[in-house]
C-alpha cells in the first residue's frame, strides 16, 4: 500500500533562550539574548501506510509532540520533509486540517464554557461536515464513547475522562483519514484508559482510520498499535513490530518455577538463573522460541514443579534493557514499580 504519511530526514531545531543569573544577566539577555539550539527532532525517516496504527514512543523530551506538530501542520521542520496525504502539512495547513483529526491530551479543542454539543456543532460548521454524515457520526460516536449523559453540560464541568472521550469523538466527526493523538490516555484511570484503547482499536479496524499516537503508557501500544516507532533525544531508535522490538533490544522472557520441595541446584539448558530462594527459582531465557513444554522437559531438578509462570517482557523492560545497555539511566518511563532484578 502507498504511504500516506512520510517523514524524510526530518529535523527540528528550537532556539532556547538561556537565562543568565542576576540583574546584569537579565539586562544582558534583554539586550542580546543568548540562545542555545535544541535538536528536538533529528534526522527521522519513516513512512506509514493507510490503515496502520502506529505507536510513537519515547521518554520525556524525546521529540514526540514536536513530530506530531509537524505532521499536523502547526510547525515547520527545520530540515527534511514531511508529507501527509500527499501534501506538505504546513504549506497546505487548511486542506490538511480538513482530512485529519487531532487530539492533544494536554490541551483542549473543546469550548470550555459552552455545552459539549455546541463544540460539536461548531466543529460541523468549521469542517463543513454534511448534515447526514454529521448526525450519523454524532449518534454513533456519542453511543460508543457514552457521551449522551453529559453532552449538554458545559465542558468545564466534565471530568478529565469524560472530556478526553469527547475530545476523541469530536476529532472523528468529519471522518478524518488519519487520527493523530498526542498522549490521549494521560491522566486517565484504568477504566477510562481501557474504554479509550478499545475505542481506538475499533475505529482503526472498522473504519480503517490510520492512527498515530504518542504515549508513555506502554499498554496503549500493546493494545492498539501493531507497529511502534521508538525515539529518544530526537533520534529514531526502532521502527517495527513489538516482537521484533523485543528481539532486537534483547529483553528476555522470564521463567518462574515453584517446587513442591527443596529443589537443590536447578539447571536449565539455555537459561540463566536470575534469582529465587526457598521453593522459588527464576530464569532468564534465551530468545530461542522454545515452548513451555520444551522448557520443562529440559529442566533438571531434584524435586517436582508445582507451579510455573512465563513472563513475556513488557515494553518497559525492553526499553529499560536498551537504556541500560546504552549506559545511561533515564527517568522511569512510567509510574509502574520497577521490576526486581
Amino acid at each position, binding site marked *: 500500500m502507498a504511504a500516506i504519511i512520510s517523514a524524510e530526514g526530518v529535523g527540528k531545531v528550537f532556539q532556547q533562550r538561556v537565562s543568565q543569573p542576576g540583574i546584569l544577566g537579565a539586562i544582558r539577555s534583554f539586550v542580546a539574548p543568548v540562545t542555545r539550539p535544541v535538536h528536538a527532532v533529528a534526522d527521522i525517516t519513516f513512512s506509514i501506510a493507510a490503515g496502520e496504527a502506529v505507536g510513537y514512543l519515547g521518554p520525556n523530551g524525546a521529540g514526540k509532540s514536536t513530530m506530531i*506538530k509537524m505532521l*499536523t501542520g502547526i510547525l*515547520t521542520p527545520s530540515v527534511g520533509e514531511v508529507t501527509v496525504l500527499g501534501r506538505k502539512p504546513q504549506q497546505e495547513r487548511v*486542506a490538511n*486540517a480538513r482530512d485529519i483529526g487531532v487530539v*492533544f491530551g494536554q490541551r*483542549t479543542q473543546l469550548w*470550555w464554557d*459552552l455545552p459539549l454539543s455546541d463544540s460539536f456543532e461548531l466543529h460541523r460548521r*468549521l469542517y463543513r461536515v454534511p448534515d447526514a454524515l454529521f448526525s450519523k457520526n454524532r449518534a454513533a460516536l456519542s453511543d460508543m464513547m457514552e457521551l449522551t449523559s453529559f453532552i449538554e453540560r458545559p465542558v468545564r464541568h466534565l471530568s478529565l475522562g469524560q472530556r478526553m472521550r469527547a475530545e476523541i469523538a469530536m476529532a472523528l466527526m468529519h471522518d478524518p483519514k488519519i487520527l493523530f493523538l498526542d498522549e490521549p490516555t494521560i491522566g486517565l484511570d484504568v477504566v477510562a484508559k481501557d474504554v479509550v484503547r478499545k475505542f481506538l482499536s475499533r475505529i482503526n479496524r472498522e473504519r480503517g482510520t490510520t492512527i498515530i499516537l504518542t504515549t508513555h503508557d506502554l499498554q496503549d501500544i500493546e493494545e492498539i498499535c501493531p507497529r511502534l516507532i521508538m525515539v529518544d533525544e530526537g533520534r529514531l531508535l526502532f521502527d517495527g513490530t513489538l516482537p521484533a522490538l523485543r528481539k532486537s533490544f534483547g529483553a528476555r522472557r522470564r521463567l518462574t518455577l515453584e517446587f513442591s520441595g527443596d529443589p537443590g541446584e536447578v539447571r536449565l539448558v539455555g537459561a540463566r538463573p536470575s534469582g529465587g530462594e526457598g521453593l522459588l527459582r527464576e530464569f532468564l531465557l534465551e530468545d530461542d522460541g522454545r515452548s513451555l513444554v520444551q522448557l520443562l522437559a529440559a529442566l533438571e531438578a531434584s524435586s517436582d514443579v508445582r507451579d510455573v509462570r512465563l513472563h513475556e517482557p513488557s515494553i518497559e523492560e525492553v526499553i529499560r534493557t536498551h537504556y541500560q545497555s546504552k549506559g545511561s539511566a533515564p527517568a522511569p518511563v512510567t509510574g509502574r514499580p520497577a521490576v526486581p532484578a
Partner: protein
Amino acid sequence: MSAFLALVSASFRREAHHRSQMMMRIVGTLIEILARISIWHAVYAGRGAVDGISIGQMIVYALIGGTLLSSWDATMIVRDIGTTIRTGAIGSSLLRPASYPMMLMAEQLGTRLFDWLFISVPVIVIMGLIYGLQPPASLPHCLLFIGYLAVSVVIVMLTAMLVGLFSFWVFDAHSLEWFMRGLLAVLSGGLVPIWFFPGGLAEVARALPFSWITYHPMAVYLGQHDLFWSVQHLLIGLGWVAALALAVVVVWSRACRQVVVQGG
C-alpha cells in the same frame, strides 16, 4: 461564511457565561463615563459652546465615544493574542481548517457584539436618562453613523491584530500593548475630540485611520459634516479597512513561518 457566523455566535455565547463580570463592567464603564462628563462640565464652566460644540454634544461624544466607539478593546485583543501565542493555545486554532485571522476576527466580533448589547447599551440608556441623549443630526446621518460604527469596530480589531501578531517576533507583547493603548487613546479622538487638537496635530490625526475609531463617527453623528463629506469619508474608512486587512494578511503569512507552538 457559515463557519464564520458559527464562531461569532459561539464566542458571543461564551461571553454570556461570564455574567458575573457583567455588573462590574457596567459599573466600571458608568464611572468612567461619569468622570469624562464631569471633566467636560468643568472645561465648559457654564459656557454654552466651545469652538461651536455645545456641552450637550460633548456629553453624547463622551457617552457613545466611551462605549460603542471605544478603542479600549484593542488592548484586550492584543493581550488575548499575546497570551494565545505565549501559552501555545494558538496550536488549537491552527489545527482547525480555517484562516487564523478570520477565526480571530470572528471570535472578537462575537465578544464585541456581546459587550455592545449588554454593557454599552445599558450604560448609554442609564446615562442618557440622567443627562439626556442628543439624537443624531438627521436620519441619513444616523444611517451613515451605523456604517461608521461597523468601520470603527473593524479598524479597532485589525489594528489590534496587527500589533498582536508582532508577538511572534517580540515575544513579550506587553510593551507593544502599552504603546498602542496610548497611541489609540489620543489618535482615535477618544480622549479629546480631534477638533480641540492644535492645528498641525489635528491635520495628521484626521488623516490617520485611527480617527475612524471614535472621532469621525461622532462628528457624523453630531452632523458636523454634510452628507457628501460623510459618504466620502465612509468610503475612505473602508479603504483603510482594506489596507489594514491586507497588512494583517501579509504579516500573518510571514508570522506563519515563525510559528513556534509552545508546550505539549
